[in-house]
């Protein structure tokens, strides 16, 4: 308690004072209430999130196949093995590639489409619903359909042929040099809707008066967007980038259905590698080390991103001016 804080707690204790309850019993009662309210969530969270994460850390220093006692202590050997493993290195590279291109492709798409759908026109409401459809489809279900669409001589190739673009045709998911980009394309289709909807929500917060003032000042639609709307979307954009980054690093479902990480590990991600090692090969100790590495990489990037971008004053970005050289 900080004295002098005019919060509800003090208000309540003052109010109940005259009713003959002392401050100390009030304190005690408050603690009980807090415990009561927080307990269910904290229990659930401790048992199913915190304990397993700590366990993963523990398993990661043993060589263990999930059966029998944990007695083959190997120290950091699992970590050394993972970091030196070519497939794991490739997985990290793939994850970073996916993270980079997810942001680089989806952000412009998201901004363009959000600006488009922010204008009033017939069918605007329907469009807002349509763009979010891929995002709510289950990854697995969408993945199964995409596998069929991308099969050799499948509908995609047929459409390309019809358009006279037959030469683009590839073995989309079977060619190691193409598969990652194919997966990237499917991910773009799947997740752009989230960027669009979040940015649209952010656009609601841009006051109409600003637009009007700018257009009265003779700014064109494009100038208004560039100088006013997009800078005001700064906080929304930064939040979305953060979500996208973390999601990309933890990617599993879509890749597992599309390629299982293949062909020849071309699309392996840290998560698919981990599941492969753990469930298919019973290498629980080693897979746990991979899990901890996955967490560390996510954590470091998240902290870096937070300190670089998110810790600015939440609020309106100043439009970029000429740098003041000191």
């Amino acid at each position, binding site marked *: *308690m900080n004295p002098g804080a005019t919060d509800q707690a003090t208000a309540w204790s003052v109010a109940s004072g005259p009713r003959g309850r002392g401050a100390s019993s009030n304190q005690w009662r408050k603690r009980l209430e807090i415990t009561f309210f927080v307990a269910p969530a904290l229990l659930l969270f401790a*048992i199913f999130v915190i304990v*397993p994460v700590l366990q993963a850390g523990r398993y990661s220093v043993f060589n263990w196949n999930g059966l029998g006692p944990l007695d083959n202590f190997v120290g950091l050997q699992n970590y050394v093995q993972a970091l030196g493993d070519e497939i794991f290195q490739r997985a990290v590279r793939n994850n970073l590639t996916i993270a980079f291109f997810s942001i680089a492709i989806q952000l412009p798409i998201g901004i363009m489409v959000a600006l488009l759908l922010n204008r009033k026109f017939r069918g605007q409401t329907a469009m807002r619903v349509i763009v979010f459809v891929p995002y709510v489809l289950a990854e697995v279900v969408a993945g199964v*359909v995409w596998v069929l*669409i991308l099969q050799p001589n499948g509908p995609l190739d047929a459409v390309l042929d019809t358009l006279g673009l037959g030469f683009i045709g590839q073995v989309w998911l079977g060619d190691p040099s193409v598969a990652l980009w194919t997966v990237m394309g499917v991910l773009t289709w799947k997740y752009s809707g989230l960027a669009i909807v979040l940015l649209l929500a952010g656009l609601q917060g841009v006051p109409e008066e600003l637009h009007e003032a700018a257009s009265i000042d003779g700014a064109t639609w494009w100038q208004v967007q560039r100088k006013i709307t997009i800078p005001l979307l700064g906080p929304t954009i930064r939040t979305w980038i953060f979500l996208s980054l973390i999601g990309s690093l933890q990617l599993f479902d879509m890749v*597992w259905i599309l390629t299982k990480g293949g062909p020849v590990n071309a699309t392996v991600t840290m998560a698919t590698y981990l599941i492969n090692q753990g469930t298919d090969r019973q290498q629980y100790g080693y897979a746990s080390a991979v899990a901890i590495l996955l967490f560390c990489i996510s954590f470091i990037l998240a902290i870096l991103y937070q300190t670089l971008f998110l810790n600015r004053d939440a609020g309106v970005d100043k439009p970029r001016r000429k740098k003041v050289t000191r």
Partner: protein
Amino acid sequence: MTSIVAPPSRGSRTSGARSASGSRRRVSPLVYIASVFIALVTLSPVIYAVLGGFRSNGQLAESPAGLPSPWIFTNYISVITSSSFWQYGLNSMIIAAVTTALVVVAGVMAAYPLARYRFKGRQALFNVFVLGLLFPLTVAIIPLFLMVRDLGLTNSYWGVALPQAAFALPMTIVILRPFLMALPNELEEAAMLDGASRIGFFWRILIPLSGPGMVTVGVLAFVASWNGYLLPLLFLNDPALKTLPLGVADFSTQYSADTAGVLAFTSLAIIPALVFFLTMQKRIVSGLQGAVKG
């Protein structure tokens, strides 16, 4: 911004009555062309799946991107009349409902003191939950798998719903806390003057007012559970307990030669989720904006 008032450019209408309705200028045909293109790209996989379900494998092989001719209903009928499809759907429904109930109840209870009580360690406690955002399911999946096995919860609804709810909690609390903070303090003062306790305030005022917030986090948790794959994949081996995504994946590998059947099965798996989402979309978006319109 410059403070120089430029003369209004040609064609910009500055009639007061107009400006009230926002930027309602004449919409250029480009907007419609772009919209049609976006809608096509977005929906084509879904359209392909739904229409493909009405075609025979022969038709699909002959012209992969064609329309049904003639329309065939046997694929859909055989899926609808198969008991396994309904069983998968029911399993998904139960697991998602249990997950959502757990998340919303535990989440709103925890968010209340974190939002409206002052106590030592409040920020620390909140940070513990926020840290959970950084722990993806994958990091914990192996210990979870072994724990669920040891608890004897493998092949049970609880084995999937409990961990799913636990992993959905951080997001829930992060969304609900500012939502509850935004409710005006006057409410609390009024309740207090009327002699309500804090618990009474929680039940009578906070819960009814945080409906929109709870719907938002509930929908997010429901969709995540409905679409979840990793936990059911590892924890449910019993065909009688499998969820819809597992069913779709299994069906597509088992009958990989029967493309039309797979498409029919997939389309029917898509529809309930889409319908649910379309009815909920406004709530999600308004929830994302944190709009409090009690």
